[in-house]
């Protein structure tokens, strides 16, 4: 009879999770198997304990403290809106004030603001051009250096021959492996600390 081997059935029987035919088969087996009846009695006590574990104590003001935290979170979320709104309000008040004091229309004020931005940008352009020129010169120097390095390397390799190249490649591989594992160990030590 499979019930003697299938320990899961004892729990499923106690939880009333066996379908009717399985249940009838299980009960029929129990009627003629004293050892399974003993096992069932033990599992019944365990099942009773499993299903009656006591609740943990929750403070009476728990729900209120959750609601407070939610309100705090909502305030924090709205926090960035306040500076933005006050900045916009200051800009509008400034423009209105300028209009009231000078009598200039708002469109004139906006045009003046755009012009001042334009003239500022015009002064910056020559400076940007000079910076680009310096950048180009530095790139020229760097490319010349790399070319020289390449030529030197080719000359060295041709003088070493195939054996020398193999030796250098091997040394390079060992060095890079050492560097890789050393760095890995350093990182793991950092994580531990």
């Amino acid at each position, binding site marked *: 009879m499979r019930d003697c081997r299938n*320990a899961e059935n004892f729990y499923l029987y106690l939880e009333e999770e066996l379908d009717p035919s399985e249940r009838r088969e299980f009960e029929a087996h129990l009627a003629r198997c004293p050892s399974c009846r003993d096992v069932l009695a033990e599992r019944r006590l365990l099942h009773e304990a499993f299903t009656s574990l*006591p*609740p*943990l104590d*929750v403070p009476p003001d728990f*729900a209120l403290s*959750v*609601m407070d935290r*939610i309100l705090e979170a909502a305030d924090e979320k709205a926090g960035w809106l306040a500076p933005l709104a006050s900045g916009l309000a200051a800009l509008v008040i400034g423009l209105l004030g300028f209009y009231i004091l000078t009598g200039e229309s708002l469109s004139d004020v906006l045009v003046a603001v755009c012009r001042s931005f334009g003239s500022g940008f015009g002064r910056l352009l020559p400076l940007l051009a000079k910076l680009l020129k310096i950048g180009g010169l530095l790139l020229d120097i760097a490319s010349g250096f790399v070319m020289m390095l390449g030529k030197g390397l080719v000359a060295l390799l041709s003088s070493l021959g195939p054996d020398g190249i193999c030796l250098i490649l091997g040394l390079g591989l060992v060095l890079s492996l050492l560097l890789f594992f050393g760095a890995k160990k350093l990182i793991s030590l950092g994580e531990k600390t």
Partner: protein
Amino acid sequence: MSEDSTLVARALKGDGKAFEMIVRKYEQPLTNYLGRMTGEREAALDFAQEVFIKVYCSLKSYRPAYKFSTWLFKIASNHLIDHWRKKKLPTLSIDQPVDNEDCSLTPQVPDPGPSVARRFELAEIRQKIERALDAIPEAFRELFVLRHVNEFSYEEIADIKSLPVGTVKNRVFQAKEMLRKRMEGS
């Protein structure tokens, strides 16, 4: 529309009292679940707060076609998984011995059973279960707690954990056997 769905709809319209009612309804089952998963009541209460805040922020994504409790416990379960991943907490092996005699959980006094002898017997078994629970792997402990502490059906647990029902049944059974063997050895 279920009571929970009505409360969610009210909360979405800005009714704070409705969400407070949801918190009051689920604070106990959620703390029972988180307490057994973390092994500490204070940590469980902190987690429960965080879960309720997450639930509040995700209310718009709740679909009334699903059971609210299943949705809430899914969020709680994912929250625990995230926490363990971030903290890289070690997963307890099933071979690790049960220690910590003074249990850190502080359960309320249970209801009396049918007889004094049986009551003592049951109380002792419950204490042993609480201690043994800490020592079984989270994956098994969680399913056991959802089934026997929170009284979810196997189908609901399968929904919460996105697992086949057969797998859930088998893991709950294995958890019970682990507990039984640990209790026999203690």
